[in-house]
């Protein structure tokens, strides 16, 4: 009895002691394996891990954005990535797209965007004018012929396609389920991922497509890949793949751009408001429904960016959706509501992966196991993540 009271009152010390014990055991187990490694390999793994983690951070941000806005966990993010990458690929590698196809895509997207809050918006002349101008501009951008315009064409096409996909998913699958239990929402995003699986399979097949967006690196005069010969000091060569480096840099730039968007623009601030408390935001005159649609469009854009960068660093293949599942450990590690947490979580997951591959070679421990072990650890030790909000529940 006295012991029980003692344990209850000093619970936090016991928890801390247990934590330290676990850490010590982990150190005893991993320490010798780590000491066996050459320092060059360790630095190599750290660098590669961080570089890989940049894209994870971008994927995680997309999942966080949707979760913040609508409380939905988007399991279809990986397929949205692949779809965005494949649309980019199609516009990028073809010599030109027919004006009719480009016009249809642009028109569909503009109509979906204008009717976000209801079809009535289409009756206003001002909206119609804006829509018409946007359609024409987008069509021209997408239909630009020739090799020299391929980046513009591909970017316009992929942005339009991603926005259309995001808006359509929100409108036709998520919006009808508002008010339904979490289970229905989770299953709906899984259903959407099956749908997108079918669409990508139908249109592009299951081949692996190399996306050469980083071909211009060769023109810059940079060596490919960058090598540091440190055989004397650290015992090895450190190799940094330039594609990975540029993908990482662009991912960070995109991440920063979206963070600034949420911090300083009107739409971004309203979205944060709507995410905080939907009913309160509605009473203040924010159009919550529009915010939801915009959140999905932005998440689709983020997915497209991540898909293009990942496709450029490796290739576009059916592995990409599995890769996006690895962002879920990153999201939970960083905290479900935290944008900064997405960055930290993504980088940590990348690091953990590469280190696991280094320490346990030949078992796919990094790509298949380590992120999920981290996930379990987070769930047991600190379910709210590093920067997430503590939840208090009432009946």
């Amino acid at each position: 009895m006295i012991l029980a009271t003692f344990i209850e009152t000093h619970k936090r010390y016991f928890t801390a002691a247990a934590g330290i014990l676990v850490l010590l055991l982990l150190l005893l187990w991993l320490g010798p394996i780590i000491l066996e490694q050459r320092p060059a390999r360790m630095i190599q793994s750290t660098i590669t891990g961080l570089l890989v983690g940049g894209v994870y951070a971008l994927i995680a941000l997309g999942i966080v954005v949707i979760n913040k806005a609508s409380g939905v966990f988007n399991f279809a993010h990986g397929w949205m990535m692949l779809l965005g990458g494949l649309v980019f690929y199609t516009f990028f590698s073809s010599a030109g797209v027919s004006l009719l196809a480009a016009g249809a895509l642009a028109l569909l997207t503009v109509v979906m965007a204008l009717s976000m809050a209801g079809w009535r918006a289409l009756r206003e002349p001002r909206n119609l004018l804006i829509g018409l101008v946007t359609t024409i501009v987008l069509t021209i951008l997408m239909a630009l012929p020739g090799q020299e315009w391929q980046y513009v064409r591909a970017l316009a096409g992929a942005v339009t396609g991603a926005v259309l996909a995001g808006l359509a998913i929100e409108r036709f699958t998520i919006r009808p389920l508002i008010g339904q239990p979490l289970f229905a929402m989770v299953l709906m995003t899984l259903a959407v991922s099956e749908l997108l699986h079918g669409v990508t399979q139908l249109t592009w097949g299951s081949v692996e497509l190399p996306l050469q967006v980083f071909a211009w690196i060769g023109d810059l005069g940079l060596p490919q890949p960058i090598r540091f010969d440190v055989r004397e000091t650290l015992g090895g060569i450190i190799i940094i793949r330039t594609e990975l480096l540029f993908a990482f840099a662009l991912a960070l730039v995109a991440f920063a751009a979206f963070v600034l968007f949420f911090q300083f623009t009107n739409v971004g601030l309203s979205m944060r408001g709507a995410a905080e408390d939907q009913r309160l935001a509605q009473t203040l005159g924010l159009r919550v429904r529009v915010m939801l649609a915009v959140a999905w469009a932005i998440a689709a854009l983020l997915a497209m960016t991540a898909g293009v960068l990942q496709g450029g660093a490796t290739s576009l293949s059916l592995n990409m959706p599995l890769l996006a599942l690895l962002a879920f450990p990153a999201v939970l590690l960083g905290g479900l509501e935290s944008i900064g947490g997405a960055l930290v979580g993504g980088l940590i997951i990348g690091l953990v992966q590469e280190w696991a591959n280094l320490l346990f070679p030949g078992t796919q421990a990094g790509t298949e196991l380590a992120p999920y072990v981290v996930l379990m650890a987070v769930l047991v030790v600190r379910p709210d993540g590093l920067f997430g909000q503590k939840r208090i529940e009432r009946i």
Partner: protein
Amino acid sequence: MSANIRPSGVFDVTYSQDISLNRTRTDKILSNGLFLVLLVIPLLAADGPLGLNIIPQAWIGLIVRIAIFVIAVQGLNILVGYTGQISLGHAAFVAVGAYSAAILARQLGFSFWAALPTAALFTGLVGLLFGLPSLRVKGFYLAMATLAAQFIIPWLIRYPLADLTNGSRPLEVPVPTLGPLSFAHESAFYYIAVPLSVFLMLAARNIIRTRVGRAFISIRDNDLAAELLGINVFAYKLQAFFLSALYAGVAGVLIAFNDNSLSLDKFTLGLSIEFLAMLVIGGAGFSLGPLFGVTFVNVLNQEIIPNRFIPALGGVLPQLLPFIDRINIISALSPLLFGLILVVFLILAPRGLAHHWEIFKIAWKIRPFSH
């Protein structure tokens, strides 16, 4: 509940009638008759002892598959439909059952009849292990823990246990025998799978009617309120995980011995999602839900899509949309239609086929009145 609605003039007159599953004589005749029909079906197929060709032989394999999947989905139903805990890792538990039975049979020489309960119990214990996070987390977080199980368990089977499980390569499983009888043929295996499936369906239905089942439902409906009412939420959640994994284990054992060869590609995240989809299409939280869902999805996937849709659409689609390759249609149509059907069900019939079956039953019983 709707189950209590009966035509006027039909009353329970004894306690045994009050607690029985079939309360009226019509119910009893119908259910026993259906079971008898199920038992007779293989005798009428081409490979049956009578040599009749009334029922196509392909149906036997399909029914066995449905029976096995019904067990797995009923396990998921206990966890998801009744207790309200989302699981994205059910296929991994099925894999545990399948592989543990195969190892028991190969390494320790267990017969099918000994391997079945042992492997199922072992799977239940593994399920308990992955249910432990439910002490601290719930809802989406718990779904993530089960997602972790879906990746950790196949990894363990593939790499550290490769000596026992053959890793990524297929693993041969011996044929179940009983004395001189061999269950190698699918018509013979039918007589293991179908009665077991019926038995486990009835068992699940009875579990839900007990104190444990009512506790499950109260946790699903409001876990905080359940705790305030004195229900040990964590203990009951663990029981739900155990039962769910037990059912998954039985299904896994049956899959192992039915296919006689195991490989890990069968037990992917895709299968877990398919289980969830079957449950929702059939109706989560209805004891007949798994039967409806599994039958619907399997008949669609095995019969209708390959035999009807693919020949029909294979000619039309490439003409309508010139960028579509004919070769891709076969592999693309299954996920596409599956996703589409799931979306339609989630929006238009979120309670599934079983709910509509209940409505139909009530309408039938109180006919000719509409209410």
